[in-house]
């Protein structure tokens, strides 16, 4: 990419053969709020596709349209080759949907919930058992407990089991790990990997960049628009400038010092370190590191360390959001 701009101009939508999800020019507003604006993408069969972005990005609205709960104002969307507006009944029996908020019956037991959702899809728990077994086995010891009394991680496993028990052809998961502890999150994504390997197409949304990296492709969404769609690594490599990790104390002084550096393009805090982007794309990395350390030392920060790094998805996302806002 030659220009520093990372937002691709309207690229023609590439639709893979038998794409389970195809979205073209989708638009939805709620009063003055634009929830979705000209959203287009296609999901390949068997893909683990991520919708990544902050809250209010339009991810939930998109899920609700794809699961036939909402009707778009403009644009079209097909799921499993069926139009979400015209052919909703053809879609409803074949998709699994796990909303962002726990949406099972809190007064029914784990097993009752599961049996109920199996039965409304015209199947039984026994028929779907082998598919959900890896997940359900973990909560089976609590099968007589009321769903409302489960912990966050267990609720989520139950919700996933309920969304899977009728053997859907595609799974929609809206922020499945929000409010769940780190260990449960990792376990959950391991389960998704397993499901994907079995051939199931999964569309999942998340506000967490580390989770985005586990998808095969992600769509970065902000304020109802898709900023970029690509594999997580590829999105990282779209970052237009040389990037450096800088560490030093005191941190706020370091941030100020780096921002004051004449060639600074951006300085972003990332956990313990700072990510510094240099405006000179051809300047040798060693030279940049040396200049940086000399600059901050000159500003009273003696304990500093810097090294070139490969940009990640989050770097790109922050750059994209900055561009989109500009």
């Amino acid at each position, binding site marked *: 990419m030659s220009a520093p701009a990372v937002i691709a101009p309207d690229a023609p939508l590439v639709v893979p053969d038998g794409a389970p999800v195809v979205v073209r020019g989708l638009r939805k507003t709620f009063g003055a709020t634009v929830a979705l604006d000209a959203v287009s993408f296609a999901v390949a069969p068997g893909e683990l596709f991520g919708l990544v972005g902050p809250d209010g990005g339009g991810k939930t609205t998109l899920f609700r349209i794809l699961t036939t709960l909402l009707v778009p104002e403009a644009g079209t969307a097909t799921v499993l080759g069926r139009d979400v507006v015209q052919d909703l009944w053809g879609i*409803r029996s074949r998709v699994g949907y796990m909303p962002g908020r726990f949406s099972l019956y809190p007064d029914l037991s784990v097993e009752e919930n599961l049996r109920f959702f199996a039965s*409304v899809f*015209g199947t039984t728990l026994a028929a779907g058992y082998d598919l959900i077994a890896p997940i359900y086995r973990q909560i089976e010891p609590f099968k007589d407990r009321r769903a409302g009394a489960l912990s966050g991680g267990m609720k989520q496993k139950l919700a996933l089991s309920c969304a899977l028990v009728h053997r859907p052809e595609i799974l929609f998961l809206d922020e499945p790990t929000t409010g769940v502890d780190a260990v449960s999150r990792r376990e959950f994504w391991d389960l998704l990997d397993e499901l994907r390997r079995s051939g199931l197409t999964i569309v999942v949304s998340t506000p967490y960049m580390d989770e985005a990296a586990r998808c095969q492709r992600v769509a970065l969404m902000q304020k109802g628009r898709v900023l970029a769609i690509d594999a997580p690594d590829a999105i990282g490599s779209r970052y237009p400038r040389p990037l450096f990790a800088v560490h030093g104390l005191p941190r706020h002084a370091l941030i100020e010092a780096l921002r004051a550096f004449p060639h600074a393009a951006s300085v972003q805090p990332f956990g313990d370190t700072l990510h510094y982007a240099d405006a000179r794309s051809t300047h040798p990395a060693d030279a940049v590191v040396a200049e940086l350390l000399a600059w901050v030392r000159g500003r009273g920060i003696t304990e500093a360390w810097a090294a070139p790094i490969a940009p990640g998805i989050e770097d790109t996302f922050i750059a994209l959001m900055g561009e989109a806002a500009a």
Partner: protein
Amino acid sequence: MRALRFLLRKEFLQLFRDPAIVRLLVMIPIVQLIVLANAATFEVKRARMHVVDLDRSTMSRGAVDRLVASGRFVASEASGSTAQGDDALMRRTVELVLAIPAGFERDLVRDRRGEVQLLMNAEDGAAAGVTQAYARQILAAYAAELQVRLVPAVAVGRARPEAPPARGVPRVEVRSRGWYNAELDYRHYMVPGILVQLLTIVGTLLTALNIVREKEAGTLDQLNVTPVSRGVFITAKLLPLWLIAMVVLSIGLTVARFVFGVPMEGSLVLVCAGAALYLVAALGIGLWVSTVTETQQQAMFVNFSILMVYLLMSGLFTPVSAMPHWAQVVANVNPMRHFITLMRAVLLKGAGLPDVAPQLVVLAVSGVVVLAVAMRQYHKRAD
């Protein structure tokens, strides 16, 4: 239909898992009926009476005795002047003063007419009216017994000394009418109405809250992503609540029969048929409320706002004929009014199918209309 069966099973499972529901179902009809039926009566018992008997004759004592013997009045005080009677009214130690002028017996014998004066505390106008009616009735009976015309001059005054009730106020003919027996039938008349009101509250509120609860929990969305159609969903929601309301009706009728001795002249099957049709409209209102609200709190508020108008325009508490014309029109399309009419006609008069056929038709039509409107609103909701 398989889906309907599973949904129904789930509904019953949830309903009977909720201990409050089961308790409410039994308690509401019993407690409400007993409390409301007793509260909604104007019956007056053992009104305290100050007797000012200036005649001191056999006949004047007879009048007092008749009043006391009825059980409605207690001669708790006596004195020789109406001024003391006024004081007693003022102090609220009595509810009424009976003043019999000197020469009462003489007038009765000579002119075949006599006057007595009743003074009552009309702070509670309704109670005073009933007290007065009782007294007149008893005195009229006494007069008939004496074969004379006994004309009590009735003054309804407030217990205020500066406005003492004047003597010689307009004379009132006493006529014995069925109205005075109203007290006996009062609860028989009110209980069926209260039962209808109860059924309405249970039917609309349970429906609205039950569906809105699914909205709040997000389970409605979850169900909408299944092959379950809305018709099946609504049927599965309404059918158990309809049954519950019918159970409430049965319990209510049992209480009405055995606690209040409400006569059941007509066919209970006819009452149940009316209720079955009426409940379609009631549940339809609940369904409609659930489509325009998002939380149980909102549903509760909207439901009660609608019920207030609905109840007041049913003719249960106020006669429809006393309403302005537009309100009468509204009341006439109010299914509750027709169901109350049907209940009273069948229970109290023993009306048969031909007599209440118009009511049944109105109930059926209103049920279909209300349910259709609610269903339409429910479908619109998705966009």
